[in-house]
């Protein structure tokens, strides 16, 4: 098991995910037992050092959101281990007791994609932001009020008292996402999962929200797992990027290394498919064919083999390539890396 874990240079990462798996049964008929499974997340391993942010990038259905939900324990892994540093200890959050869960909830928070649906319409902004404090019994009411006011100032909703007792529907999408950030940071977490937090916002507002997240992360030493389909956004937000395809991480590297020197055929295709806001730039052609499918009981070979322009018989007949370090800090899961580059 340990030989498969990556990032040996990081002594004690903040988050360490080992061989994470999540299978969803495909229901066929009411009473029949499920015999087929969607491999939403399949043998995923990575780690995040404290203070660093990792981008999880992929197309819809690649398992990035499921991974995020498991890391916040909204969903349970079928198999694998997830460690979160809590002081000197590493909590295993894949298998956690009630007491551990309490500690876990103080450390990990989440920012959701939809600023309209992620807040209870019947609770005020104060109730929404103070909720983690309230349910975890942190502080008395005046202290909570003070803390919420402080956070509202931090996320730029000033003057704070004018926002505290409004309802979500009285705020714009950008303002709500600021509230969501305030809620995520109210209990001083060390790790925040952000699931496409800007994809539903207007272009002009996105940057200010992303800047806010970056500034607060620096100030409070928060690490993000930043889930997005947009490589350009991931580039802006993250220190390292992991590219997922059908439940597997196919490539993981420092952001500029990954974008400047993509190794996996899928990463290359994904990268050359992203439109560039400069009409004089001519993108290289996207070399893959077909569309994304669902990973229902996939054969044990490389998941990308049907769409890969370079696939050989070796790829079709041998077990899926493991995620291996090809150069310092650059991990790729492909049999043919040398040939492709």
């Amino acid at each position: 098991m340990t030989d498969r874990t990556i990032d040996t240079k990081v002594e004690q990462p903040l988050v360490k995910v080992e061989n994470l798996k999540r299978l969803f049964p495909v229901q066929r008929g009411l009473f029949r037992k499920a015999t087929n499974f969607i491999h939403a997340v399949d043998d995923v391993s990575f780690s995040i050092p404290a203070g660093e942010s990792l981008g999880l990038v992929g197309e819809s259905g690649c398992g990035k959101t499921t991974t995020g939900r498991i890391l916040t324990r909204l969903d349970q892994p079928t198999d694998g281990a997830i460690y979160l540093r809590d002081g000197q200890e590493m909590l295993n959050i894949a298998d956690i007791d009630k007491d551990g869960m309490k500690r876990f909830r103080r450390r990990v928070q989440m920012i959701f994609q939809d600023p309209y649906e992620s807040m209870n319409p019947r609770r005020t902004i104060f109730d929404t932001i103070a909720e983690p404090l309230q349910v975890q019994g942190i502080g008395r009411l005046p202290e909570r009020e003070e803390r919420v006011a402080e956070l509202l100032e931090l996320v730029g909703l000033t003057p704070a008292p004018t926002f505290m007792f409004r309802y979500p529907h009285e705020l714009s999408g950008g303002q709500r996402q600021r509230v969501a950030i305030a809620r995520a940071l109210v209990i001083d977490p060390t790790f925040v999962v952000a699931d496409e937090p800007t994809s539903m916002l207007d272009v002009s507002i996105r940057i200010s929200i992303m800047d806010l997240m970056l500034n607060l992360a620096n100030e409070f030493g928060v690490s993000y797992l930043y889930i997005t389909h947009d490589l350009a956004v991931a580039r802006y937000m993250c220190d390292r990027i992991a590219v997922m395809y059908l439940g597997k991480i196919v490539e993981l590297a420092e952001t500029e290394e990954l974008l400047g020197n993509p190794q996996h055929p899928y990463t290359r295709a994904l990268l050359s498919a992203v439109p560039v806001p400069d009409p004089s730039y001519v993108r290289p052609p996207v070399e893959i064919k077909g569309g994304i499918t669902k990973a229902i009981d996939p054969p044990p070979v490389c998941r990308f083999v049907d769409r890969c322009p370079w696939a050989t018989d070796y790829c079709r007949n041998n077990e899926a390539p493991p995620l291996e370090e090809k150069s310092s800090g650059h991990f790729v899961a492909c049999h043919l890396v040398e040939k492709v580059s």
Partner: protein
Amino acid sequence: MTTDLHQSTEEMLAESLWKVRLKLAWRSFRKGWASFVENRIGLLGLGIIALYGLMALAHPILLDTVWDPRVYDPIIGYDAPATIKTIVPDGQVTDPETQVSLLEARLINPILKVGETLEIREQPASPSRKHLLGTDPLGRDVLSQLMFSTRAAFLLGVVASLVTVFIATTVGSVSAFFGGLIDTFFMRLADLILLVPFLPLLIVLSALFQFGLLHLALMIGILGGFGGTAIILKSQALSISVKPFIDAARIAGGGKMHLIFRHIIPNVLPLSFLYMMFSVTDAISIEATLSFLGLLNIDMSWGIMIYQASVQGYLLSGTKYWWLLMPAGLSVTLLAGSFFLVGRAMDEIINPRLRKR
């Protein structure tokens, strides 16, 4: 508008939190009221309910002050207004108000003769100044009965609908949240209740157990609460329990009870309140039906009034004895209908699909 809001929230912060919440509740109530008032139908319904409410309140006061209980008590009062009529030969009645034929007079007293006078006690008596809606076949004032029964109707409606909504909201939210066996159990139970016809079941039960008003209210409430209303509120709770804000609350560390009571139920409540209106309608009409069939062990209600008219043989008498049937019948229709109208108007506020704007 916005500056207004700013000022008021700033002031709010200086106050204690419960006062703020009260103010917020008041603000949202005012908003809801503003859109409710736009809907004439709802306002009409509310007007009718208020009218009946006034009647219910006025009844005990009237009995204490202007109405003599011996005459006007809705259950044990008695009055048969007497008219003096002259006996005329058969077939020569020219004015039925003051004259009576010999034949008819001798049915009452066989020794009477033409030219003598006869005191006829009317029972039921038609409306007069003393009895605005006449008296019933037992000589009791119909208006007094009508007003007295209003209280019963309200009590029944409120208790039944409160019980319905309390049960249905809890059952619906709990089934939606937990799913699995709990959900299956409650939903099959609801199906079972829906499967058994409501009214015949109540008829059998009331025949067996001598139902009073409160028993009936509880029975309707329980059957309604575990029945159809639970299914409707469950589907609402289900649509809420999959929203991201539930996940957000979970990540905040909220336990099951926190999620159900702070997040799901507050969002189901508006719909619950709506179905409360509809279940008042149901309760009132069910009571009327059961009373009409003589299956309830209660002294007086609109249903009993119609039942009395019926057992005394006035049910099919057409319009001649209209005051025995019409006031009670109309009241059942109006009050039940007005709760329905209020429900419809609320539906337009609560249900965004129906909202015009």
